[in-house]
Each structure stands twice: as C-alpha cells, then as structure tokens.
C-alpha cells in the first residue's frame, strides 16, 4: 500500500444530489477525475509505465441516495490554495456535485481509516402518530447502531429522522433493513422510505465528533 506520508493532499467535502444521485460510486469517481483534469488541477501521478492518479473517497453512497457530506482526498503535485481548488473544480462540475470545502495538508491515514461515523437524514412516510415512533428508540437493534436520534414530523404524515451511525465498522446500519425492521416491529406500522441524505461524516472519539478536515496535518 502506498502511504500518503509527506504527500500533498487536498481533502474536500462535496455533495451528490439531484439527478447525479443516480450514478454509481465508480461513475462518480470517474466524473471527479475528469473534472479535475479539465480544471487543470496539478494532480500527482504515480511513476511507472502506466501512471495512475490517486483519488480516494470515504464510503460509497448507494445509487439513489443523496449527500452533502462526501469526502475525498486527491494527491497533488504541488500546493494549491484550497479556495482556488474549490473554485476551479466547481466550474467543471455538473449540477448536483459541488465542492463545499477544501483543505490542503498531509495525512498518514486514508479517509476510510479515519472516518468511523456518519450522520444521516432520512425521510419516511407513515400512517401513524409520532408517539408510536418513539418506540424505535427503545429497540435494541437501533440502540446499538443509532445515536442522537431526532425525530421530526411534518404535515402529511412525513417523518424526518436524523441520526448518527457507525460506518466502516462491520456494524453498519443498512437503511433498507432498517425500514424492513421498522415495519416488522408492529405489523400495523408501515413506513415507506422517501429519501436518504448523508449529512456529514466524522471521526467519533468518545463523545467527540471530529471533522475529517481536523484530522489533516
């Protein structure tokens, strides 16, 4: 494995929304790489017969889900002002993908080694009163996997759930399973998943949530 020690890393947070949410994770990486090339960002290429660039992302988002909290690292040939990076890249990105923040630095660990927790917002439609839903919090399956659950009810039986969940630990929450599970607790409860939005990703250490940016050296 190639370590990124002493390499110039541009870490950036970006969104994946609107129609672009329908492209796969691999397609998204290709899209970012082509945008980086068009933006003439000084990308570092590995030496060798077929030079490769190094763009690594954190955890893949399912096709159809949205996010305003995706992260990626790109190794650069030389330092670049993060704001310039952000501006140049945003000029080349399609609607729905936007660089929200960038920080230049170095890191010995990859994003997927650093991030261990994600914040989601999911939208459900349901046909029940909110207090019924408070029961979710009491089920052990969720106590293990969900933290800081906040439930908000909109009109028209729309329910918004905000929560934190571990990611990349083997104890991840499968949101589709989650919905199935919800529907099986009490037969009369019926939820339909309307939207999944990844709000952000963090490194959780004890009770502290650290931003991936704060982990750059």
């Amino acid at each position, binding site marked *: 494995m190639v370590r990124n020690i002493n390499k110039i890393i541009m870490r950036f947070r970006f969104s994946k929304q609107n129609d672009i949410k*329908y492209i796969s994770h691999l397609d998204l990486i290709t899209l970012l790489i082509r945008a980086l090339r068009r933006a003439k960002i000084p990308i570092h290429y590995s030496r060798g017969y*077929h030079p490769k660039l190094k763009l690594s992302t954190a955890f893949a988002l399912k096709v159809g889900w949205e996010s305003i909290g995706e992260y990626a690292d790109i190794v650069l040939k030389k330092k670049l002002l993060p704001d310039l990076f952000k501006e140049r890249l945003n000029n080349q990105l399609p609607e729905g993908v936007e660089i929200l923040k960038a920080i230049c630095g170095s890191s010995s660990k990859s994003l997927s080694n650093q991030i261990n927790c994600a914040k989601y917002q999911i939208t459900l439609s349901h046909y029940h009163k909110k207090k019924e839903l408070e029961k979710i919090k009491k089920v052990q399956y969720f106590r293990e996997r969900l933290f800081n659950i906040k439930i908000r009810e909109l009109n028209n039986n729309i329910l918004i759930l905000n929560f934190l969940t571990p990611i990349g630990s083997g104890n991840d929450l499968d949101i589709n399973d989650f919905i199935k599970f919800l529907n099986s607790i009490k037969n009369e409860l019926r939820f339909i998943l309307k939207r999944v939005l990844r709000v952000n990703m963090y490194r959780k250490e004890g009770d502290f949530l650290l931003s991936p940016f704060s982990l750059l050296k």
Partner: protein
Amino acid sequence: MVIKNTLKNKSKMNLKPINIYPLINKVRKPAQYIGGELNCVHKDIKKCKASMILAFPDLYEIGMSSMAIHILYNIINNHPGFVVERVFSPWLDMEEQMRTLNIPLFSLESRLPIKEFDILGFSIQHELCFTNILNMLNLAKIPINSKDRGEEYPIIIAGGPGVFNPEPMSPFIDFFVIGDGEKVVIEILKKVAKLKNKGFKKTEIIKEIGQIDGIYVPEYYDFIYETDGRLKEINVKNSFPKKVVKNIYTDFDNYNKSMKLIVPNTKIVHDRFGVEIMRGCSRGCRFCLAGSIYKPVREQNTKSILKLIKDGLANTGYGEISLSSLSSTDYSQIDYLLKNLRRNLSDSHVAISLPSLRCDSFSVKLANLIGQERKTGLTFAPETGTQRLRDVINKDIKDEDIFECIRAVFSSGWEKIKLYFMIGLPTEKKEDLDGIVSIINRVLKIAKYEVPKNKWHRVKININISPFCPKSHTPFQWVGQDLPENLNRKIDYLRSKLKSKKIFLKIHDTKMSQVEAVLARGDRRVSKAIEIAWESGCKFDSWTEKFSYDRWTTAFKKANINIQFYANRQRDDDEIFPWETISTGQYRKFLFNEYKKALKGKTTPDCRFVGCINCGLQEIIKCNIKI
C-alpha cells in the same frame, strides 16, 4: 396551400417534459436515462425551425460509444435553427416500468415524448437491432408501419451501415439516408423546416426530400417476384432514381473545428475520446461490408487530428484517446501522428489506443510506441488458417506476418492476445480448419519461448471464432452461408483440437448468424417476419442471452419466409438483388469479378499501392488513386 393537417406546429403545442423519477427509482443503471451529461446541448424545441431525435436501437452504453451519434449531434446542434436530441433503447426493466406506468419513450435532453419531434432518425449499425427499432417506435406510441402513420407523427428515417440493404426495414421507415450523413442531414432539416412552414403534408415533404442525393424512399419502388421466389424486376415510380448512390463526405476539417464529444456520466463500452483519423479502407477483403460501403479512403489531416485531440481533451477531461478507423495502421502518417501525440501528451498522462491493428510486426511497433495498455492485450484478425483461404478472401497477410507479429507481441512484454478467425468461408476445406489449429498452436509455442517463466501464468490466448455471414454489396453477396449444423460440426472439431488451458475459445452463435444472414440479404417480404418476431417478444437480438432462435424460426414460418432460401442459397450469377436500388459506387461487374477471382484463389492488390483497380468509385468521386 392549406395550413392544416401539417406536421405539428410546435409553438402552439403544450410540450411538457415527462416526469421520469417514478420510473428510474426502480431500474438498474438509472444513470443511462437521466441525460444532462457534459457537452450535451439543451435548446428550446419550440424556438427551432426543425427538430430531430437521434435514436440508437441499443443501450446507452453501446450507442454512446458510436461515433455516428456524436458527429451528427454536433453538426445538427451547431446549426442555430435546428435541434437534435438523443434516445436509446431502454433495458427490459425500464421498458416494463414505462409500459406499466403508461409513459412513452422520451428524449434524454428535454425528456419530451419522441413523438413530438419533426424527424425521428435511427442509426442502424447491424441487422440484429431491427426488432429494437420496432420496439422503440411502439414504446413511443408510434405505429410501426409507415402506412399507418398520420400527420401527427414524425417522419421516420434511418441511416448507417445497416441500411445498405434497406428492404427488410422498408415498410417501417419513411426514407433511408444512404452513406455519410454529415452534409445531407442538414439538407433534410432545411427542407423539412421550409416545407413545414409552407404547410406541406408529410407525404409531400417525403417526396420532396426524395429528390436529394442519397435518399431512398421505399414507397416509390415496386418489387416483382418470380414464382420460385427470386426477384424478377424492380419498378421505379415517377422520376425517382433507379439507383440511389451513397453520399460521400470529404470535408472533415469543417465540423472538427467545433466538435465537442458528450461525456457520459456512466460507464460506456468505449469510454474514451474517440477520433476518426480515417474513413474507408482499400484493402479489399471480400467478405467485409464496411470495406465496401465506406470506400474510398479519406484521411484526416494530421494537424487537424492533433488540434481535435488537444481541444477534445481540454473540454472532456478524458484520460484515454482512441484513434479509430477500419484499419488505423494504414493511415499514411501514422508514425508521424503517434510520435507527435506522444510528445504533446507526455505530461498529461493520457493513454492512446489503436483499435483495428493489422496483423503484422509494424503494428506491434506502433503499439509499443504509444505504450498501449498491457492489461488488455492486443487484438488481431488473421481470419483464416491457411494462405490459400486468405487469398480467397483477399486478406493480404502472410503466415510469416502473423508469426512475426505474435513474436513481437510476446517479446515486447504483452501477455494477452486475442485472435479473430472465421469459419464457413467459401471454398473452406478441412485443411483450413487444421490451419487454424496449427496457427494457434504455433502462437502458443512462440508465447512459451518469449514469455519469461515467472510470467507464464499470466499468458492468455483468446480466440474468437465467428461464422461467415454473407453481406450485400460485397463480392460474396452471391454466396450461400454454411448451414448451422455444418458450422457447429466445424466448431466441435476445433474445440476438440484446442485443449490447452491457455486458450480461451469464444464462439459466435451459429443460429444467430443465420438469422443475421436472412436479414442481411432479405427482401421486402422479410419485413413481415421481423414484425412477427418483434410481436412475439424478440428484442436485443444481438445479446446472446436475449436471442431466441425458436421465436425467429416461428416468425419466419408464419411470414412464409424460407430461411435457407435467403441465408444458405447460392445466388445465380445474374440474379437481381433486393439491394440493387442502392449503389455503393462499386460496379456489379467488379464485385462479380472479385467473386470469381476468389473462387480461383486469386488476389486483388490494394489500389493505393498498384493504382486504380476500376471498382467504379472513380465515377462518383475522385479518390486520389492513379488511374
């Protein structure tokens, strides 16, 4: 002129985009239906004088890999008064959703029903997409037969290599565009815009467009048959040409200036920046349809190719370019071009690939020069197992070329190779099959000798074997295809002889090839079978897992089509062919002479090396070959 019953007046219509989200949440690979890619063009249809939809009768990932789509898309959209949008065949899951929710086929750009465009143009690459065309029309809620389509429907047209024998599709298509479409597509749009404005009816517009060079309107041709099923005569109505001569485009530099490739958001088959460095091939292989219909050779200027690549990489961000043509190593400035590219691209880390390499050591030298990707290996087409049969098909490669080529491949560090062979060629004997076996064994030996022991485990020899399928307009248009049972016997024989673990055989379906052969040289009567086949569920026929021989044979039977009459029958020397209404510029007597020479094993040299061989092209275009 009365202004009613004309092609729709768009400004008065309420064009509403289709809400595609209920559909695409439930399908695989939804990215292919969303559009909005980099460099795609959005224009307001209502404000354009004429609108067209380019339809590709296969999946997005295949259609977007076709240069034709990109070229026409650019040419039409660069014209201020016209708009073109795209549509591809939806995969079965999407079709099911569309039918369930009663949503018609829509364009990628505006998401408008494709019925709302003035012209619907299909790009037909081969015969096995015919049923997909009918399926797309049906999904668009457009009647498949031209005679059932009133004024409210678009003019349905088709072009591409698959329309050089237009007859099997003639009842479904209003007119065919024969040959290169670059120039004529604008003429067509101009006529439509003008006549629509004047209030012409659709049939009148089609009749007018029929006067343009290279346009074949099937309605104006009557076919009369003998009692034994052969064609007796073709009657031409009115002043329409007896032979529609293909269009030949020469002004490449013109559109290249503003060419912007659409960059897909999802992986496609050829996911790279494609540049057509040359059109046509003068090698004269006697089985090759492309060789016949894309004549003469037209090379693009090297300077303009380099500029096109420079601009193209900047506006697409692609990391790979492909220099495409029928025979890229035949490009006269290939060495110079590659060296320049190498220099220009040295610090941009762009990979170059050269498809369609000739089977000789020069090609390998070029592949080395550009550092062609090692992982995928190189592909060559020796086609036959013996020199004798290679002379029959006029493939100008010697056994020594093949072995020199293979030696160069393995000694330069490649570990994978793919070789194409054909079986069922005219005059083929057992020795020719044994020849294939011995070439492959020799390749294996060379690999063993050249590849270091520690890398031997990576060696892979991929062998593709396809049945020969006779095509119209080629010297082999008279030839009956070998029967599937014979072909299968030959395949079994090859299988039994090729047992090495390093050899990976991939064999083209012989039954699929037979259906292809019927359609390739079919007449107007075959159209009924296509319609029945589609009704019985045939679609994506070129996809092995979707192809159903049973459905096709049933359809042929119901339509009273004798498969062997079309696929396997040896044609009479003076037989009238259904595609006689179309001319590639080659004389029939030239093709016939080539055919007779083939049977005697006599070759015809490449006209670029020996001067004009009098194929007929010189009558319609100057091809820069010495007479």
